[in-house]
């Protein structure tokens, strides 16, 4: 019954185009609610009972019926993506309102159609096991993401980022396909995920894993495969950025996790590989994030960082499994998997509120913003909530997943050998640095965007966004706080998924006292804060309160907009520490010794992603350069082409004579 409704909803999506522009979002939301309800029901069932849900779809695919299969891994991802996509669509209702008059009916319809189909394709990606069907769903997902991304197609930047995205996704697809084909050719087993079991049992899994990791890693945005990500997120409309960062890149993680379920040997090498790549992604992601001026680009780099944290969890989980340290394995996997949920929550929240800022101020450059908390208080506070959560601070959800990973690491220290201990300590250092840098970055973003005084006209006369846009943010916020204060329920769900990788999860149950300790401490903290706030309020009622300008040493002629810290200045202090990694070009004419009276000058910085430059831009430029060389021959003159033909024949002739071919 559910299955039929589920598939009927697919067909219903085409009804989108007959509706008016205003109603499209509601219609899309309805369909998505249906989809989410059905799949959510299945998933919750799977997670609670630990069973596997299997059904056959009515659609025939390549002659055989299409099977869907939901195990705990799929179920977890389905729940995460359902939530994020629903909030995304809700948010879009308000966010796209200004575009109703700008965009025509087809464009608008296509957008919502794509949004619903993105949902469907992602659900299918999580549920399908057949190789070919998976690849098709994967491709459909990429294409619809592309369509959603280029909503503002009148901007050249958007189209460029979109094409870059599509191109890189195809590279990923080819790599994944190559992986399937490679396994299929070597074993002759079924062309599906389950067929990989045979390969991994028989051969060294590492090389093939590497292939899959490259393919899925492009989607996930591991450094150095991340180069599409910082361009795609700012280009897409904000609800799509939220969804993209919240769940689409997680599909890459899903792929990697799915592959890992079939691997049982060589885990140490794979674990260390994932750990190293993730640690680098985490560190570099946040380091690049700090120097960005584009709000959404900055958040995009944080996605890379959080993918890194997820990867660190998975990596140490694998090392734990390989080295026979169950606590490390269990807590690593649980922490990593829980972080998938956590990141999707706070990152979508952050993107939505960043979108609200963009919608009202029409700028993403944080150097133009400032003082928005007085004009958009709810957005500001929600952004602060997201910021605190992404920094991994208690009592919010980000802390829980990081705490699990830390806990696993410190517990793991005890039973590990020397090399593993060094690895663990290295990981701890990475995690603390990532945490610290994230705090550095988000204190910067939050205070530059929302606090102080307006830095330009753009942020002077703005108003709070509509309730419709705030509502989905509040939904995400509630879950963030819920996970932070009552983590056990969510940790158990993540633990169920981790069960796929670790033999038994007694450790999860054993560390629940610690988790309840966390929730107890968080509650005490919140209560104490509330109490103090109350005390403060009563104290303030009795005394005199005055309002004055900020202390400026009694000087009256200063311009408050210029006299506050800028984002560049805030980041500069830290940038000095890692000049080789952080290439920031300062365009500023320096003075000579004898210039005692300076000339009029200007100052501008430009940040560039070194990895992107060296790994993508330079090779591409090289290729283009050689292409252009070859293009000399393409003169468009018929005689020349005939001459080429003769030359070619002559060459063949000569080669045959000398028996070279």
């Amino acid at each position, binding site marked *: 019954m559910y299955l039929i409704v589920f598939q009927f909803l697919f067909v219903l999506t085409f009804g989108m185009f007959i509706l008016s522009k205003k109603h499209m979002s509601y219609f899309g939301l309805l369909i998505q609610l249906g989809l989410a309800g059905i799949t959510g029901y299945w998933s919750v069932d799977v997670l609670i009972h630990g069973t596997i849900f299997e059904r056959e779809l009515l659609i025939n695919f390549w002659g055989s019926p299409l099977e869907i299969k939901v195990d705990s891994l799929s179920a977890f991802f389905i729940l995460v993506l359902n939530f994020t996509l629903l909030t995304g669509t809700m948010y879009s209702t308000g966010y796209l309102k200004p575009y109703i008059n700008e965009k025509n009916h087809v464009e608008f319809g296509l957008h919502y159609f794509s949004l619903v189909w993105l949902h469907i394709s992602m659900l299918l990606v999580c549920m399908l096991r057949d190789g070919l069907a998976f690849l098709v769903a994967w491709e459909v997902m990429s294409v619809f993401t592309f369509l959603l991304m280029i909503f503002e197609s009148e901007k050249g930047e958007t189209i460029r980022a979109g094409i870059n995205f599509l191109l890189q996704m195809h590279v990923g697809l080819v790599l994944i396909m190559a992986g399937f084909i490679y396994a299929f050719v070597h074993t002759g087993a079924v062309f599906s995920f389950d067929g990989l079991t045979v390969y991994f049992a028989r051969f060294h899994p590492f090389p093939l894993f590497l292939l899959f990791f490259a393919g899925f890693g492009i989607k996930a945005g591991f450094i150095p495969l991340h180069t599409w990500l910082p361009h795609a997120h700012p280009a897409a409309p904000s609800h799509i950025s939220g969804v993209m960062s919240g769940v689409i890149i997680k599909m890459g993680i899903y792929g990697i996790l799915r592959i890992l379920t079939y691997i049982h040997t060589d885990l140490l090498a794979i674990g260390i590989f994932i750990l190293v790549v993730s640690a680098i992604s985490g560190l570099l992601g946040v380091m690049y994030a700090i120097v960005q001026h584009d709000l959404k680009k900055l958040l995009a780099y944080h996605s890379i960082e959080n993918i890194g944290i997820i990867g660190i969890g998975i990596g140490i989980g694998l090392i734990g499994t390989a080295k026979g340290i169950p606590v490390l394995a269990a807590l690593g996997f649980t922490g990593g998997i829980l972080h998938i949920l956590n990141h999707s929550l706070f990152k979508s929240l952050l993107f939505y509120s960043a979108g609200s800022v963009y919608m009202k101020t029409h700028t993403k450059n944080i150097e133009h913003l400032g003082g928005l908390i007085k004009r958009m208080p709810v957005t500001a506070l929600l952004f602060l909530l997201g910021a605190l959560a992404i920094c991994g601070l208690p009592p919010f959800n980000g802390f829980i997943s990081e705490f699990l990973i830390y806990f696993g690491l410190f517990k793991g220290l005890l039973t590990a050998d020397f090399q593993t201990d060094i690895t663990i300590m290295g990981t701890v*250092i990475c995690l603390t640095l990532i945490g610290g840098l994230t705090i550095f970055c988000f204190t910067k973003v939050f205070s530059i965007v929302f606090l102080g005084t307006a830095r330009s006209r753009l942020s002077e006369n703005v108003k709070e966004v509509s309730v419709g846009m705030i509502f989905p943010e509040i939904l995400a916020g509630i879950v963030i706080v819920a996970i932070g204060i009552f983590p056990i329920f969510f940790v158990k769900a993540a633990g169920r998924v981790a069960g796929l990788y670790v033999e038994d999860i007694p450790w999860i149950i054993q560390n629940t006292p610690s988790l309840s300790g966390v929730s107890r401490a968080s509650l005490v903290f919140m209560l104490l804060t509330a109490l103090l706030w109350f005390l403060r309020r009563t104290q303030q009622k009795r005394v005199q309160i005055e309002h004055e300008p900020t202390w400026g040493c009694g000087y009256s002629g200063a311009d408050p907009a210029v006299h506050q810290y800028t984002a560049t200045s805030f980041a500069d202090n830290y940038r000095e520490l890692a000049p080789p990694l952080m290439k920031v070009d300062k365009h500023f004419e320096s003075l000579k010794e004898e210039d005692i009276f300076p000339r009029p000058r200007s100052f501008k910085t430009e940040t560039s992603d070194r990895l992107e430059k060296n790994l993508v831009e330079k090779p591409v430029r090289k290729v283009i350069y050689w292409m252009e060389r070859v293009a000399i021959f393409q003169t468009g003159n018929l005689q020349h082409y005939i001459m080429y033909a003769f030359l070619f024949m002559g060459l063949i002739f000569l080669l045959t004579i000398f028996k070279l071919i």
Partner: protein
Amino acid sequence: MNGLGFLLSIVSSLLFPGIIAVTKAKMSGRKGPGIFQSLFDVARLFRKGSIYSATTSIIFQIAPVIYFASIVVALLFMPFGQYKGLLSFEADFVFFAYLLAVGKFMMIVGAMDTGSGFEGMGANREALYSLLVEPAFFILMGSLVLLTSHTSFYNLFVHIHFDSFFSYLIALLGIYLFIQIAMVENSRMPIDDPKTHLELTMIHEVMVLDNSGFDMCLIHLTTGLKFALYGGLIANFIFPETWTLYAKIVVFFTVNLLFAIVVGFLESCRARNKLAKNPKWILALSSISMVVFLSVLAITHKLFLE
């Protein structure tokens, strides 16, 4: 009895700033203020009204409250000999460290809320230094975890044993690191000079330029609490398990007193660092704790060296 560590820390926190001030005064041959002067200041601030910058928002007002609350809750983890902290659980030091970070986050954001160049400077520096000092703390705790095979503050300190010459060395290094981390966290010498009047070179004090009244009162109290936090940890670090409760209480206060005197002494006898040197200096703390970690590996025979 589990709250004993908390209570004693609160008591010592009230005296901390006073003792430091008296030590510094004695060192420079002045008479100096009384030990309780800082408490009178706090009491005076509590009764006072507040002036708020018109630029600020609710963030500025709530920041000191959260800052204070975070430190108090962190103190609830403080064990005392065989008595647990009120909120003790496994890996509580992770929560402890992140809780301190919450307070710091809010103070930084609160300072930026005033839109003042001075406070921006202080906030920026505070953000940078606290991020750099984190690894040192975690590596040190990791070493202790490894040394004792336990993961909560309470168990760490109960199960710590020093028997060989080598372990005394580690204990000394541990205490050194705790003191230096405390100095960084509190923005004291040689990272920052709290007594200076120079807005341009300060870190913590310049962040609170615009605070007044009740908020300032909380911030003042927090300074003492933060010192007591680390003083308590150091005291716990050196209690032998076998001592009686009263001996421990005496030692607890002695250690706190000594800690305060050491701080006062350090602040009298050397110049502060150049600001650009601070990151390196703080990073070196992490390096030292890494050496401590390596030697703990050697003690626990994970690292076999002939």
